[in-house]
């Protein structure tokens, strides 16, 4: 493990830190926890970096981040048998005073983020990987570790739930 190893890690993995942090924020719904877990995941990734062959570095790293997030939550749940914390992404709603239009837009955004935060984690992660990270089904399947068919059906169900909650479906409109 010489210096070039660190440099390569820096060049290959560190550019995906924002993606990792975003995923962790949505999975854990707490920015401080997300920082701790992403740090842990990065060190793990560094330790297993030998096992990374040239390929999709983002998917490889996000798979580690996801595992660390789930492990963290499982431990949490065992520690104290409560569901952690209200979603944090609603903060935009509090800043919505300036103009009506901006207020509406901000509260819409907050509502959308809240709706995603309220999804069960197996739907939430797929929505984030697809709509925020713009990953292909194959990449999502690598990160989540399920077949592509499962990715497709979960994505479909997740979008359906969000559509009915956000009023983009005809039943609500």
């Amino acid at each position, binding site marked *: 493990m010489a210096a070039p190893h660190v440099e390569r890690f*820096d060049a290959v993995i560190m550019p995906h830190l*924002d993606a990792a942090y975003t995923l962790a924020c949505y999975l854990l719904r707490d920015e401080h926890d997300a920082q701790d877990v992403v740090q842990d995941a990065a060190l793990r990734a560094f*330790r297993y970096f030998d096992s990374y062959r040239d390929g999709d570095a983002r998917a490889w790293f996000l798979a580690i981040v996801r595992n660390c997030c789930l492990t963290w939550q499982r431990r949490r749940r065992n520690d104290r048998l409560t569901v952690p914390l209200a979603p944090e992404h609603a903060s935009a709603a509090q800043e919505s005073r300036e103009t009506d239009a901006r207020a509406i837009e901000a509260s819409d955004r907050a509502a959308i983020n809240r709706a995603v935060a309220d999804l069960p984690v197996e739907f939430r992660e797929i929505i984030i990987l697809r709509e925020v990270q713009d990953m292909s089904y194959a990449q999502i399947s690598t990160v989540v570790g399920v077949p592509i068919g499962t990715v497709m059906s979960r994505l*479909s169900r997740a979008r359906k739930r969000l559509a009915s909650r956000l009023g983009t479906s005809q039943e609500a409109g």
Partner: protein
Amino acid sequence: MMRCAACRELLNANLDNELMSEETADVRDHLAQCPDCARAYDELAATSHVLRESLVRHTAPDVLKARIRSALAESRTDATPDAHEPRRAIVSHQWLRLAAAGLVIAVASSVTTVGAVRERNASRSVRDEVLTSHVRSLMPGHLTDVASTNQHNVKPWFNGRVDLSPPVPGLDSAGFVLSGGRLDYVAGRVVAAVVYVRRQHVVNVFSWPDAGDDTRPSAVTAQGYHLVSWRSDGVAFWAVSDLNASEVAQFVTLFQHGGAEAKR
């Protein structure tokens, strides 16, 4: 002709560009003739669009990057006592623990050695100290002692605090916004640190008196940070940032240029 049920099953994959071209054509044809499926598809597209527009893309905080890089540097130091260097005795291995931010920074291990290697180690340890100071400055509340975007507030602040008057050029127009100044401690002395920010990335410029010939900027990369050092008119300069290398080089050119103007 495709049936509605078969079409509905493929709508998500069609939206996400996951279908083979034949399937795409089948879906397209069906949608052209079936208003119900077309409406369902529009709703799906609208939902996806709204999500893409509204979901928050977080930026990993500088402190998180700094924490990871320190930890990586630490694990590297643990793993290899530097195979490239000739044998040397590691006298002390100092770890500066900064509990407040949970940040552990590896300080350059002090080394004793002989002759030729000493010079190299000296400059290397200055580099490491500069880097350590930079990382420490990223912690909350450590960036500036005098916070101001006005060079005419920052420059005089250093009077009587350090034994030079550091150049503080205004580089706003180039996108490097002055953030303030700070006293720091590098190479056994109090030094001036002038702070600029671009896109939430911090650039620290350290300077202290150093009699010696002028040198041209030379760049190194360590732990993901770019460091550029040069000497000019009896002052040693180090610029450090995690901006990309070309931006740091651009900054140094502007700083030198602006610095020269400011003196006159």
